[in-house]
């Protein structure tokens, strides 16, 4: 009876490989349009879809696959967590390797399982009142964000360092290492080393999720994951259930002690169908082979670890927090450096929909889109901000709008994208080299990508520091033409703070007006 378990493992591997494939292809590959729906996993996520819909007060066409998952769960049960969740697959893989020999019985109380429901109701209530921070706990968002911001860049870094070392090594070593490096470069490595703000923090949080496996199997999935909670509630009446032919059962208790979700309770014949993720381990290990998963009638499910008081309290707490966020001052005076991607919705709608998955940052061709810390408030953490000193918005690129799973960044046709203002550049005349009579420069004007340059220069006399009058080419910004792409700020040769900077003034999403 081990075939179904093998199937489940194959499914987990397959899903993870698909996840990795889509992740690696969330990148410019000599093609202006991404050929795959690389954001598939996010769009399959009913928790994220529900929260974005509630908080954004809009039906989001992009997330229809999530509805399919919800319906399937209602019919089949909480299979998603055992068979399809890529984070679940990673956790199981870590469990089977790192924690293979760790004994973990009862380290954490079974009653902790209710926290995931409390988190779910908390998030649902705050979403209902427009505050969406499902991203903090959504497993798909966490996984893609972590891979984008931390895991992949770190892996890329290590591989690069290794092969750079081998490249400089003496003798025949480079002859062997270089072809391998070439292969990795064309299929796996990033084109250029990506760097991200918050990467260490995000990486540590992820390690925390994995480390919790040392206390309890599937610690995250049992106790904290609100998507798991949602699917437990939807799927507990599903048809595909664990059953026992009680006549043959010797009550050996092997299934109960081995269950990764502790879904078998007290009596081995009683299953908590909300907690059971259909991993099929119990069926595979049962010495009497009396455990089945089938659609036939079985015992009634165990009660959910929920009290009316708990539900009400967490939902009330979720609702009560909202006004605190609505009186945060950033709503009135937004951080001027909060430059959103091209096609981003107005700030409120944007934050309601943004899943913080990091897809836009992953695909951003110049590495300019970065996770925020607190520029958009605590509520806006990890949302994308263009940090032009790190990278600019490529004039002919529309990739971020193509990957956004909830339409927080609209998919713009190229001609519209070229006219969409992210903000406006200004020249810091107290630092700009020609303006202060220091040197010729005009690098900003050279790189300005608008077809009639938004940065123009005028030849003007300036007194150098030595007292001599000289003609300098001084940059001026034509605010009608400037789209705030930030390439001027990226390329400004001043090494610390640029002398030409972009602020969000004039951004199209706020003014609603397209540039000429």
């Amino acid at each position, binding site marked *: 009876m081990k075939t179904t378990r093998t199937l489940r493992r194959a499914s987990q591997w397959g899903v993870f490989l698909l996840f990795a494939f889509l992740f690696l292809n969330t990148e*410019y590959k*000599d093609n202006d349009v991404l050929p795959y729906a690389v954001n598939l996993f996010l769009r399959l996520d009913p928790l994220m879809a529900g929260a974005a819909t509630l908080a954004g007060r809009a039906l989001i066409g992009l997330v229809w696959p999530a509805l399919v998952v919800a319906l399937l769960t209602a019919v089949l049960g909480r299979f998603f967590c055992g068979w399809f969740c890529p984070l679940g697959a990673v956790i199981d893989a870590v469990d089977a390797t790192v924690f293979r020999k760790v004994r973990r019985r009862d380290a954490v109380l079974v009653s902790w399982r209710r926290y995931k429901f409390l988190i779910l109701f908390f998030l649902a209530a705050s979403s209902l009142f427009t505050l969406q921070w499902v991203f903090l706990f959504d497993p798909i968002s966490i996984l893609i964000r972590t891979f984008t911001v931390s895991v992949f860049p770190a892996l890329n870094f290590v591989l690069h360092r290794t092969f*750079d070392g081998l*490249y400089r090594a003496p003798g025949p070593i480079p002859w062997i290492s270089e072809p391998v490096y070439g292969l990795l470069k064309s299929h796996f490595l990033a*084109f250029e080393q990506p760097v991200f703000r918050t990467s260490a923090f995000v990486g540590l949080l992820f390690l925390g999720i994995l480390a919790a496996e040392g206390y309890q199997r599937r610690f995250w999935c049992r106790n904290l994951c609100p998507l798991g909670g949602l699917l437990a509630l939807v799927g507990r009446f599903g048809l595909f259930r664990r059953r026992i032919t009680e006549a043959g059962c010797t009550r050996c208790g092997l299934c109960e002690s081995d269950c990764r979700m502790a879904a078998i309770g007290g009596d081995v014949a009683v299953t908590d169908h909300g907690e059971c993720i259909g991993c099929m381990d119990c069926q595979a290990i049962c010495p009497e082979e009396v455990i089945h998963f089938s659609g036939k009638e079985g015992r009634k499910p165990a009660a959910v670890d929920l009290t009316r008081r708990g539900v009400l309290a967490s939902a009330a707490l979720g609702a009560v927090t909202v006004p605190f966020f609505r009186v945060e001052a950033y709503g009135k005076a937004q951080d001027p450096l909060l430059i959103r991607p091209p096609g981003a919705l107005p700030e409120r709608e944007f934050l309601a929909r943004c899943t913080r998955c990091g897809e836009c940052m992953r695909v951003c*061709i*110049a590495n300019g889109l970065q996770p925020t810390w607190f520029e958009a408030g605590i509520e806006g953490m990890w949302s994308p901000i263009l940090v032009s000193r790190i990278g600019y918005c*490529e*004039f*002919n*690129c529309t990739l971020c709008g193509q990957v956004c799973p909830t339409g927080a960044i609209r998919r713009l046709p190229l001609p519209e994208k070229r006219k969409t203002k992210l903000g406006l550049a200004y020249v810091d005349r107290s630092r700009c*080299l020609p303006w202060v009579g220091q*040197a*010729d*420069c*005009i*690098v900003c*004007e*050279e*790189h*300005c*990508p*608008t*077809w*009639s*340059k938004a940065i123009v*220069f005028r030849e003007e006399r300036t007194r150098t520091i030595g007292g001599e009058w000289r003609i300098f*080419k001084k940059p001026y910004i034509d605010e009608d033409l400037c789209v705030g792409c930030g390439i001027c700020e990226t*390329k*400004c*040769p001043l*090494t610390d703070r640029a002398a030409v900077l972009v602020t969000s003034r004039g951004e199209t999403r706020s003014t609603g007006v397209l540039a000429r």
Partner: protein
Amino acid sequence: MNPGGCPFSRRRFLQAAGGAAGALAASVLFPPLLPAAGGKTVDVGVASAASPAERARKAVALVGGMKSFVSRGDVVVLKPNIGWDRTPEQGANTDPEFVVAVAEMCLAEGARSVHVFDRTCNDARRCYVNSGIKDAVEQFARKNRVENALRIYHVEDRKFVRTSIPNALSIKEWDLYRDALEADKIVNVPIAKHHSLAGITLGLKNMMGIMGGNRGQIHQRLPECLVDIHRRVPVALTVIDAGRVLVRNGPSGGNLADVKPFGKAFASRDVVAADVVAAEKIFRLSPRDVGHIGKAMESGLGVSSGAQIRLIEG
């Protein structure tokens, strides 16, 4: 061009000996373009033809053919302008056909390998693709089964080498691309276009593509820096693409209305001479109008007066 050492002493001597005559010649450079009496002259080919490839071939033929520049077994670096995420029609990058034609000539003279690359200003992948150069070069290589000899690739950080530049006017050392430093011959294949700071950009400025580091700082003393780079990494042949010329909003352009058909190509073993002629013919500018060309002449990098240039039109 002249290899390392102290190659310019004769010219410097001539220049000095010329005295007032030289200064006078420099001030009224164009016209005429007369062969300098007794001085060493440098040929510049000016070719007109219908297609970019024909123009390239003709221009090189006018100055003696590729055999005068590339020898059997040479490792050649072919440096086009691939700096911008622009299409060939927008005139910001060297025409792909033009690049392929020059590469083909190098291979025909028995070059062991021809490496094509540029350090771009926009995202390198987008520049390589949308300039059409990557596709054209790879297609040619596939079709003629020379994939191992003719390669276009992206620059890698690890291959920039901190290089000292003796007798530098401005940059005593800089990160230069290893492949360019190690090449037997460098063939410089720029496109002629408007450039805001430099006025225009031709052969001299195109070689910034082998420089690493913060190139923006170069602009603060652009003429001197360009001389330094060319001294350290001499170019064997410069072939300037002037089929389409971006006359405004350079060097990146974008607007097709700013691109004028010109239908010419220029070739010379002396990058300075090539630039002097192209500046005059295309933009009606004398070396005095273009800071870095004037500086290059003055510093003895190549020709030091228009009188040393022999024009061969075809």
